[in-house]
């Protein structure tokens, strides 16, 4: 599947700001099963400095500096991305117990090493209630792939997708207690739950196709940037995506932008501006398939 992806982010400041520094994490990543044909980022006002780097996890960073006074900031990202992921055999995975043991012993120190995704991170922290929820739902003797997919579907059933119920700052406990939130909350709850039973889990930010194929339901969270979870399924299978908001494995509807331990590693835009009062932000996403859908063999 080939998509044309458009992301627009806009900030309106209550008073003019200057000397603003930002980091953007908005460009789709090059990955197995995902190749980026073109990606272009435009920023207004025009940055005085702009640099591109890859972070520890291999995500693309755009570093910006805007010196003159400005009252608004807009970021546009346009990309054409081809996504062809293989259907994973979730049955052929180690048991949860074996997986946890393998993960704890794994010595890969690079960005794909499970060691980075087992402990508390800034937002996704171990919480007793969440760990209990995971222990109740996840059978240590079950094949990990199946158990994780079942957990993701169960989350979709137990939790209400409720835009506006939470904000970026809502603590994980609160979203979990209310059993509602947006894709970010779903992803953080699932990450905390899996790590609580020793399964390495990563936060993925990205895009979801906006227009469903004929006869299929519209997916939740498609009009904004989306978030889901990558789960390590052992040294053989490696990382596989699961989307707890929609209760599915990640196949060709998802376009990966950035992978990290939780939202704080992959926030699409971070920045420091000195300004008083609330700022207005808006953001919109379009993910449109190019041409005809080609059925994968």
């Amino acid at each position: 599947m080939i998509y044309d992806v458009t992301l627009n982010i806009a900030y309106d400041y209550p008073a003019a700001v200057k000397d603003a520094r930002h980091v953007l994490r908005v460009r789709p990543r090059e990955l197995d099963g995902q190749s980026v044909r073109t990606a272009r980022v435009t920023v207004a006002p025009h940055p005085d400095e702009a640099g591109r780097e890859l972070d520890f996890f291999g995500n693309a960073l755009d570093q910006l500096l805007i010196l003159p006074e400005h009252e608004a900031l807009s970021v546009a990202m346009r990309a054409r991305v081809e996504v062809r992921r293989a259907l994973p055999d979730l049955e052929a995975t180690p048991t949860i117990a074996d997986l946890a043991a393998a993960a704890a012993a794994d010595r890969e120190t690079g960005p794909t090493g499970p060691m980075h995704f087992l402990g508390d991170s800034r937002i996704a922290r171990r919480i007793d209630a969440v760990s209990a929820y995971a222990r109740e739902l996840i059978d240590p003797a079950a094949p990990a792939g199946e158990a994780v997919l079942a957990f993701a579907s169960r989350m979709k059933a137990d939790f209400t997708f409720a835009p506006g119920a939470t904000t970026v700052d809502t603590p994980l406990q609160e979203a979990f207690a209310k059993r509602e939130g947006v894709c970010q909350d779903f992803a953080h709850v699932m990450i905390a739950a899996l790590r609580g039973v020793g399964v390495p889990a990563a936060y993925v930010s990205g895009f979801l196709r906006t227009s469903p194929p004929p006869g299929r339901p519209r997916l939740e969270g498609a009009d904004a940037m989306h978030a889901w979870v990558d789960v390590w399924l052992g040294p053989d299978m490696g990382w596989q995506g699961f989307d707890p908001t929609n209760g599915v494995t990640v196949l060709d509807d998802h376009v990966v932008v950035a992978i990290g331990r939780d939202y704080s590693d992959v926030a699409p835009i971070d920045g420091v501006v000195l300004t008083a009062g609330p700022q207005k932000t808006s953001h919109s996403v379009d993910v449109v398939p190019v041409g005809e859908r080609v059925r994968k063999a």
Partner: protein
Amino acid sequence: MMRPLALEPAPVPRPSTADATLAAADERPAAGLLRGYRPPAGVFDEAVDADGAVRPHYRALIAALAAMDEPERERRFSSAGQYLREAGVYYRIYGGAERGEDARAWPLAQPPLIIAQREWAELAAGLEQRAQLLEKLLGDFYGERRLISDGVLPPALLGRNPEFLRPLADQAASGSPLIRFIAVDLGRGPDGRWWVLGDRTQAPSGSGFALENRVATSRAFPDLIRDLKIQRLAGFFQRFRETLNALDDGRGARVGVLSPGPHNETYFEHAYLARYLGFLLLEGGDLAVHGSSVVVKTVDGAKPIRVLWRRLDADFADPLELHARSRIGTPGLARAVRAGAVEMVNALGSGILETRALLAFQPALARALLGEELRLPTVATWWCGQEAERDYVSKHLERLSIARAFPQTVEEEEHRRPLDLGMRRAPSDRLLDDLANDPASVVGQELVGLSTAPMFVDGRLEPRPVTLRVYLARHANGWSVMPGGFARVASSTDPLAVTMQSGGRSVDVWVTSDRPERPVSLLEATSGFARRLPSAPPARAADNLFWLGRYVERAEAATRLVRLHAARLAEGERRGALEAEVGELLAGIGVDAALGDPAEGLLRRVRAAFETASRIRDRFSPDGWRVLRELVDLIERRLERDETDDLPGLASEVLIRLSGFTGLVRENMYQFTGWRFLQAGRLLERGQLTARLAAALTRDEPPEGALEALLEFADSRITYRRRYSVTLSRETVIDLIVLDPLNPRSIAFQVNGFKTLLDELPGMRRGETPAAVSRRAARLQVRLATADPAELSHLFLARVAADLGDISDLLGEQFFSAAPTARGERPEAE
């Protein structure tokens, strides 16, 4: 000073005055001072051996103390205490009963902890080896990470470590040491051996306090320090300063101390060390990243800086790539570090070495990294991420201290105790819960029964548990140890409860020597000298100096008005129009006499000045700061005793102290850019307040007594009588208070003085296009010089007051906003 001392022959005892008195004391060691001195059973005592005999290196001290009568001891101790008070040594304490956060005077106890030279040499050798181990360990974490991939360390120690900073994961590639100044916490066990309790590598505190302890203690015991040939600390710092200066490749102006700011527990120390070492005291907001360099935002534009001694926790250092919520960091700093633009001492991420779980793998680490055994043992530690260890810890809870395996993140309470040494006996419920549910986050550590050292309690020596923090610095060719340290004594005899927050105290640490040391002072120039002007102050410091000037002047004006107000009421004058005008003016500067005790308003004004001064303690003398603190104390005491009915008396005392501050600033402060901002603040504030008062009191029908009040406020009665031997007239009073360029209280005098200062500020050179602030000030000068007192209305005066407000704003825009944008023309708000 590598480690030659260990190889020297035993020192030959030489007679000295201290030794002469020793024999007598030695015969009856328990007499007097040591009567009843009984260390707990099974504990090593620093001063007395198992048989109760005074150890040789303590004999001179005990003898000398015994030879003093109690008043003399008291006198000596209080001279140390007086030094600390005068120097304004303090630390912040969190969670105080009512105030939440409070600055406490420094709790120095006596006598010092003494360590004999031979023992110290052995300890130092062990510490140097430890520093090498830590340096290599950090190099591996931020380099190849072989210790993990080869299986020397479990993966979780890196993977779930909050101090492993991924944005800097490869920073060791440059090969330069990532740590250059560290501390090691030590305790001495019952067998007499020193044990490592923990490593401090993030931003080790206490070395500045150790220096101050030494200065204070030398006031108390100058003779003993000389006779015992106590090793000096200055050489260590001198070398460290030279090392940091050498790291600067010449592009940077100076070395900076990067501080979290005045709310930090050890801010005093940051300011003290910056002043002592001649470094620039900086906060995150003073810095910016431009292109590939880090710059200091100064009043003279952006100046590059290459070396930062970091006292700010790494997570706060860069809101873009580290903690996004940090408001005290510098956006882009992590990227600048990656680009090699700035040398961080210690590197961002060096806090990973403070991970307690690492103490469970010491022998393996030493073999892997150094190929040798550790000379200095570390406290026995079990990391509960391993099954056997967890079982052991769970079964022996009563014998162990349970603690966090990983460094605490900024949100956690334990994080805010930089001066805590030692261990805790009772684990919290949270820790026990984690031991059951997340064992990898917990370690068990053997409870070390700390040694005791003698400490004066109610005039007698008592044994108190002691811990020792020792400092090491990395020089071009290796590590060296500060010959001394920061020792903490517990307030109780519980050998585990050594913490500053709960009433512990600190003592100086003396390392003896067998030969006198040549005094080294940081003031000595090594090779000639060139007189250099100080570099431009950071914009924030200049801003604070300017506001300090304004606040001090405002406090003075408020005090004069309160005195005026109170005196007239006391003389039985009715509350009339004049009182109303003065009351309104007072309310305008935050002293609302109608609403409450005016003394409370004065306190607020004086506090504003004191707090501003506290933010820039590195920039002026401790005396000036102390005067302001005494002022706060003075008014607080009055309010507590509820003796505020004597307002004129209080006002006079406040005025005398404020003039003391002014005098100190005028006589003692180096009269360069920083001083100019302080003066500019005073002049603008005085001009503006005088203009406002004059406008209020010279309306068409001024209230009764208005002209006298104006003269009184401007302290110009005598001048008036001398210059105009006539009765008061509106015209002559206005002439003197507003226009007379020779009256140091007139508005014209303030404006002229301000303009002169302004012309000396960076970027204000003659011949260049004048900045907006300069043009406005010049125009006001002319207006005042050409005004006719007869035609001068209160509207004119109100306009002058508004002009001075605008000039203050323009000055701020010109110098304090410090954005790197070109300083273009700004629209004039007229």
